């Protein structure tokens, strides 16, 4: 298989890379150092690898890297830093929504995808939005609470 040149715009940085056409976006991102994108199954079962691809949340293990050629990719690390976290990152940290943290980046992507569409979700809508993200540690309650509290903060701060 001959490597193919593609362009990936990730968290505001542009990478020109030569990749095998059968490589998944998940592997490409992790190889480029975006290791906040986690691998839990490589089959679309767990949601740990979720990223935004042109504004749409996808499981990056189900996308081939070349399909993301020229696309804007946003990972959880691209949302904020520990100095300037995204409200979801703050809320997850404060609500006890993070135990081992392995599901967290993907969870936050799914939660943001929901809040982008529905700034005031019900608990049931949050459950639905994160239903493709497995968490083995928390039992979800504090994650749902975190998304609610982020929604409130974002509403009050007019920030998205």
């Amino acid at each position: 298989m001959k490597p193919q040149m593609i362009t990936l715009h990730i968290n505001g940085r542009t990478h020109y890379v030569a990749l095998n056409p059968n490589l998944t976006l998940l592997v490409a991102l992790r190889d480029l150092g975006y290791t906040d994108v986690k691998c839990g199954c490589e089959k679309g079962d767990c949601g740990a690898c979720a990223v935004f691809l042109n504004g749409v949340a996808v499981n990056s293990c189900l996308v081939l890297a070349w399909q993301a050629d020229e696309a804007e990719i946003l990972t959880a690390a691209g949302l904020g830093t520990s100095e300037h976290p995204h409200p979801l990152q703050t809320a997850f940290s404060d609500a006890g929504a993070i135990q081992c943290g392995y599901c967290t980046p993907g969870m936050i992507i799914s939660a943001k995808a929901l809040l982008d569409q529905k700034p005031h979700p019900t608990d049931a809508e949050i459950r639905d939005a994160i239903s493709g993200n497995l968490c083995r540690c928390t039992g979800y309650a504090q994650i749902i609470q975190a998304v609610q509290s982020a929604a409130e903060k974002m509403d009050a701060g007019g920030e998205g």
Partner: protein
Amino acid sequence: MKYQVKPLPQVNLPELRTVGKPLRKVDAMGKAVGDTVYAGDYSMPRMLHGKVFRSKQSSARITRLDVSKARALPGVACVITGFDVPNARLVSDMPGQTGQKQRAGSDVPVLASEQVRFYGEPIALVAAETLEIADKALSLIEIDYEPLPGVYDPLEAMKPGAPVVTPPDNIVARWKIRKGSMESGFEQADLIVENTFRIPYQEHAYLEPEAGVAWIDERGAITIRVSTQVIEHFRTIARAVGVRQNKIHIQGTMVGGGFGGKEDITIEIYLALLAKHTARPVKMVYTREESFLAHAKRHPYVIKHRTGVKNNGQITASKIEMISDSGAYPYLSPYVLLYTTVMAPGPYRIDNVQVDAISVATNNPYTSAFRGFGGPQACFAYEQQMDDIARQLGLDPLDVRKVNYLRTGDCTATGQVIESATWLEETATRAMAALGEQTPDYGSVKIGQGFASYFQSYGRITWMHDTSQAWVGLELDGTVTIRAGVPDLGAGQANSLCQIAAEVLGVPLERVTIYTTDSALTPLSGTSTATRQLYMSGNATLMAATNVRNVLLNRASKHFEEEIEALDIADGKAFNKSDPSQTLDLVDLAKMCASEGMHLSNLALFKAPFTDPINPETGQGQVWPDFTFGSFAAEVAVDTETGEVTILKAAACHDIGRAINRAAAEGQIIGGGMQGLGYGLMENLIVKEGVIKTPSLSEYLIPTSMDYPNIQAIILESGTGLGPFGAKGIGEPALTPAAPAVASAIANALGVSIPEIPITPEKVLAALDLP
């Protein structure tokens, strides 16, 4: 409300500044923004990729193993087989600690070379320049097997003439308890109740598959960055790899979920061998399917209860027999069996107890530690038994339990006196009350409520003589550093130590930084298993911080010209309690101490109670330091046409002694409860002839956000635990009562009980067909 909530005794816990607060855990933000680097995220210069070649047979002799084509493949750095490392063996039943002799032949070959005993058993290791080349190399390994008769049912495996997995026989371990007299116990009984319970495998399904990187550092030490619950494995790894103990350096990472599944050695020895043979860094990350094949499962059990009771429900005799499936190798099976044995009678006061327990080898996937460590299996059986006793006597399930619940000062079946609070009725009535009024039945749907109570140890077996160390130091800018070898699995293991040090040294939590999980650079704190870290390392941290505090108070007493007792430290200042305007900043105090050569740090060692092993004939003696007590309640809707069970409400109430971080404690209760609900209703590892048929997260289903309602977490604080500030442990206990509570609720809805989990729709329908 079904039950009157039992009032709590008066408890006067001192008001604390940091401990108990639901503060942001010190590890949370790094995880939220993606700064935390997990084991599979590391890369090293010139790094190779490692893979494991595994058996595709459950029981066979290897008649030919040819790795020459794999070795010849360009880009392959090395291929290692069992013939290359004949001495690489893992001793798996820790002789001398169980009071049992080490069984002959029970250690595990790191790589099988003559015989394979389970599907997925490692046979060869490959390291190559890329993952693709490593995979290609696996496909070039040639192997011929001569199938051997296998044994897949522990009951079959015990019969004479059954295939023997590892000589001399298939009995891996036995434990027994003898207390009082069976004869007189059953004589006193008005009724005898007998049941057999079947409890299945459970897969940990942590989100992070096993991962790590190893290399040889400039001192010639094999350094292994790995996701593990136990950095002390460096000793076992050294022996298996054939180097000295101080030449193995484990750098544990944040663990992406453990639950016991990363308690045994996972990939460390493979990485060490590959790094040693290639002299290059090697990375290994399991796929999800490989993770399913490679690590242990929770033990399936068959447990038989025969209980004699009086008409008022009082238990006069309890005779219990159990068999667990240890799979092809023992690993921790003897210990897990001990836990199930000792917990088998439940949190009940029983004068006449007899327990006989056997763990049996088969060619099934091997079994070992999983959150609860044999306790959940015991609990499912004893709580279903209690419900059945209530049903047969026409009594309420709580009334039957109330007559028997252990009280402080009572003895367990092994004669261990319980000194802490045993708030069983308190927790049961609160959990049930939290469910509120029962939803009425509708159509074909029947509603039921039920609960389960439990006791579960925290801390390791006392004859293991467990210790933990922690180092606490005050820096010259008034910040605090902790060094402790604790692996952090996400339960707040590291954070709770920070909250304790912050409390004792009177600084805000943000000023505390902890360095953890390094077998060479942090004091060894022991394993993150057995619900021991808060108890053990929490106490070690408390001791170390208190010693530093005493130095500070001593110096401050000179400064203030006051007795030490008159002083306190809070908000970064020492002050005079009777005149809080008289303060001395910690920074200034630290500088005074430093310039006068006073020690601003302390390394403390905390020792659990040390005991002798239990009596091998009677099982009498102390087994653990103490127990956590609690209850779980659930309301279910059972569709009698489809067999489908929906959990409508769930609540868990535990006496955790003292919450160190309230949000983290709730997280344990809810998350552990959810794993227990999954265990009771949906998690179904299908194993046929030793082969796991459900090796993915789309086949082995674990609870999603859609499956179960929020578990209401009710925390009680008796302050009577052996941990810091009176804390008990909650990591494992959280899981234990959930599955039996759901089973009780289902039985309450249907009027028949189902003695086997997971309670799938098929089992519900089958139970309804019973006459």
